[in-house]
């Protein structure tokens, strides 16, 4: 297993690479550049980095203005502030006019850790997914983060890129080519399909190993683009397996589990279970303790899968 890397670190690095290639890329942060890792871009391209101070609403609007003039802004803060505090600015200043801004939000989910529930965004995917024309991406590892940053720079429209604080294992191959809206089958199987995003993809792969040890063939699909959802792959694997488990570091309401359920309910109703935060707020603790406490584990995914197959 290769070294674990947080998606926020991969983001910071990818921005620098992007900045070298495209002089229209500009980056804004709201006083968290050392945590979101935009500091790397700030050091490389100080003339194209703008700290907005602790003023997420204004940062969001400034990015919209930059985008109207052909710039390609990436704006960062913690997910709770980027998607939560500035929600209506994202809605009305960026997504309603369909402007080319990527909101790259780090510290999503409970793996923020000790800072506690006030800082752990568990509703951001839902908020962003509700906006017409918004693209929502949750990369699973460093390779995918780099690919997503590149793809979003080339894409013309509003996007939400959800990043994590915690170092996570590599789940994608070195030659993986990320495409917006395309799910990736990481392990094939025919008894149960596990659709996962973000750090839960590696947990899903672990769960599939556990299930294999018990003679259950589980497919693992990395659904990094929550919107637009790769409906074809979701439906195909639901039909193939006849049982579906979703796994995400987000409220089970509104996120990946909801998106998959919506598609399946209308196209091929399938037995289904959702692994995620069960509609409660987070709390302080180490990331490992919190993942365990909220059931964001390979064991829970495997158990939910087995329950479906009973």
């Amino acid at each position, binding site marked *: 297993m290769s070294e674990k890397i947080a998606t926020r670190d991969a983001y910071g690095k990818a921005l620098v690479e992007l900045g070298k290639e495209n002089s229209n890329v500009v980056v804004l942060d709201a006083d968290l550049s050392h945590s979101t890792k935009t500091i790397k871009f700030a050091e490389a391209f100080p003339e194209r980095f703008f700290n907005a101070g602790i003023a997420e609403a204004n940062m969001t609007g400034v990015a919209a*203005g930059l985008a109207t003039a052909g710039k390609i802004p990436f704006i960062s803060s913690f997910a709770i502030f980027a998607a939560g505090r500035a929600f209506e600015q994202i809605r009305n200043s960026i997504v309603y006019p369909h402007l080319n801004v990527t909101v790259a939000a780090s510290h999503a989910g409970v793996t923020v850790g000790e800072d506690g529930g006030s800082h752990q965004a568990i509703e951001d995917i839902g908020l962003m997914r509700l906006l017409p024309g918004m693209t929502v991406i949750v990369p699973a590892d460093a390779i995918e983060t780099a690919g997503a940053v590149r793809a979003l720079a080339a894409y013309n429209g509003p996007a939400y890129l959800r990043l994590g604080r915690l170092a996570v294992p590599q789940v994608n191959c070195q030659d993986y080519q990320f495409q917006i809206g395309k799910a990736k089958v990481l392990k094939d199987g025919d008894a149960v399909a596990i659709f996962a995003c973000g750090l839960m993809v590696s947990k899903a792969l672990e769960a599939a190993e556990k299930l294999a040890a018990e003679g259950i063939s589980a497919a693992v699909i990395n659904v990094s683009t929550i919107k637009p959802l790769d409906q074809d792959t979701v439906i195909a694997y639901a039909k193939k397996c006849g049982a579906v488990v979703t796994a995400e570091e987000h409220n089970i309401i509104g996120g990946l589990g909801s998106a998959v359920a919506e598609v399946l309910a209308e196209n091929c109703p399938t037995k289904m279970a959702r692994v995620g935060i069960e509609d409660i707020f987070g709390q302080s603790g180490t990331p490992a303790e919190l993942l365990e406490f909220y059931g964001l584990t390979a064991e829970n995914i495997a158990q939910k899968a087995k329950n479906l197959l009973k």
Partner: protein
Amino acid sequence: MTTEAFAAELRFRIIDMLIKAGSGHPGGSLSAADIIAYLFKEEMNINPQNPAMPDRDRFVLCKGHAAPALYCALAMRGFFPLEKLDTLRKLGSPLQGHPDMNKLPGIDMSTGSLGQGLSVACGMALAAKLDGQANSVYAVLGDGEQAEGQVWEAAMFAAHYKLDNLIAFLDLNGLQIDGSTHDVMDSSPLDNKWRSFGWAVQVIDGHDLKAIKEAVAKAKTEKTPSMIIAKTVKGKGVSFMENNVDWHGATPKGEQAELALAELRKGVSL
């Protein structure tokens, strides 16, 4: 056409289109009419044949509910046919209740949610600096809007990044939906507030075209962003609307409609 004549016709067209629409915001459209008339008739480097011209001056109507004033100015400048003004607020019309940049040429930003426009204008001004362009960015804010915290976030940002190409107007008509700004949420003294945030501040009569022109000329010499506080009359030009908050978001009907048009038609040759 003189700017005075342009402003007079603008007022007439604003009320004419609002009467046809049957809903909308006459009071704040009329208070901002002279500012918008001056900018679109005389000041801004814009081109109806090339609305997306990269180095054009930009305009952000932060108080997006004054959209009728903007729509009339754009139509009168030839950005789209005058007949389209009759479709305001109708299903499928590009003339939305609040400005939509993707539906109508000449709109630099979709606005309407108060407090958000000045931040966007900051981004436009920043982009011009990055590109080494000499264009100006104009914004028109409402006085009720001054209660929005984001306005002051943007005020700090503009001064911090020395956006001297940003020229904002504050349409100080003294009224907001629920009453006088003094009673609802007193934001005075606004001149001192903006000055203390690092802006160059001028206070003018917002219906004096010469004063508006001179204020813009002075703003362009400043090394900081500029706020031109324009003292205005809500409902300016229609006797029964002036300084009457009832006409913030209501349009005249029947005899009142005829009276309003008769008052505004004076001196307008259509």
